[in-house]
């Protein structure tokens, strides 16, 4: 019975992933990515990793994607000017993608024994936390440290922006409205420096 779910959610995940990667509009691809995360969470559930499935939804779909959406909104319509790669690069990409997946599936698809039966409590919070807080306690603490470092980093980046802004750079607030002006100025500068290298 799980096979059906697997195939359904599997294909959903793949399609949404493909769409994420191919959409021109960042917002659309963000939504497709959220959809992909949800289908993967379903797969987690299928693997009876319930706690993880929930986390996936909460963290990935919830927190991280929201943050992405925020940034996308923040950057505004500057993205549509982003040129798509020329066809040769895309062709190369598609080609190598197909090659890679074909070879990989051949590699990975060897038959395995079916999943062994597992106690009901498998995948639950107690089981996971029990392993987490005994064997990997040290790693757990480190992750905490990592997260604090990330937060400090993000804050630092943001803070430096406000007081020290140089004349040419507009403060964050005005970013949205005047970025057209700044971007053209800086892009012209960019153009100048970016002497194409043969």
């Amino acid at each position, binding site marked *: 019975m799980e096979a059906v779910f697997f195939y359904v959610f599997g294909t959903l995940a793949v399609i949404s992933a493909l769409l*994420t*990667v191919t959409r021109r509009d960042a917002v659309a691809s963000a939504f497709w990515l959220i959809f992909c995360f949800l289908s*993967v969470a379903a797969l987690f559930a299928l693997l009876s990793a319930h706690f993880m499935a929930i986390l996936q939804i909460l963290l990935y779909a919830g927190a991280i994607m929201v943050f992405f959406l925020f940034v996308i909104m923040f950057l505004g319509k500057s993205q549509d000017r982003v040129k798509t790669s020329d066809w040769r690069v895309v062709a190369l990409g598609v080609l190598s993608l197909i090659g890679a997946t074909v070879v990989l599936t051949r590699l990975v698809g060897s038959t395995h024994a079916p999943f062994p039966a597992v106690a009901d409590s498998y995948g639950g919070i107690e089981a996971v936390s029990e392993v987490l807080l005994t064997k990997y306690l040290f790693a757990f603490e480190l992750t905490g440290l990592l997260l604090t470092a990330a937060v400090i980093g993000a804050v630092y980046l943001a803070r430096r922006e406000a007081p020290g802004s140089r004349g040419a750079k507009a403060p964050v607030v005005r970013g949205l409205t005047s970025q057209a002006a700044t971007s053209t100025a800086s892009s012209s500068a960019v153009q100048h420096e970016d002497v194409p290298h043969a």
Partner: protein
Amino acid sequence: MPDLTTLHVHLGHYLTLSAILFFIGVSGVVFRRNAIIMFMSIELMLTAVNLTFLAVSRQLGDHQGHVFVLFALAVAAAEAGVGLAILVEIFKRRGSIDVDDFRKLME
């Protein structure tokens, strides 16, 4: 249509699926010029890896995979945070987030 009931899903399927997802992520990173899309593709690759972790953990019947997925999640979050902050910074300075414009290193 093969008889669905007799068909059972085993580790191979999951690994293949995650491989496919992973490579979609890779292609996203490699072929899209928009930095945001690249970040998203990276997130996609991370979830693919999580899927593999859990599949194998399920096969082995223990929870180590889960713990790793947890850590991976933490890392992904941190990375997204800092990455996007940098991206904003670059956007402030360069006005564009087209990856090919960032050839500063090359000159």
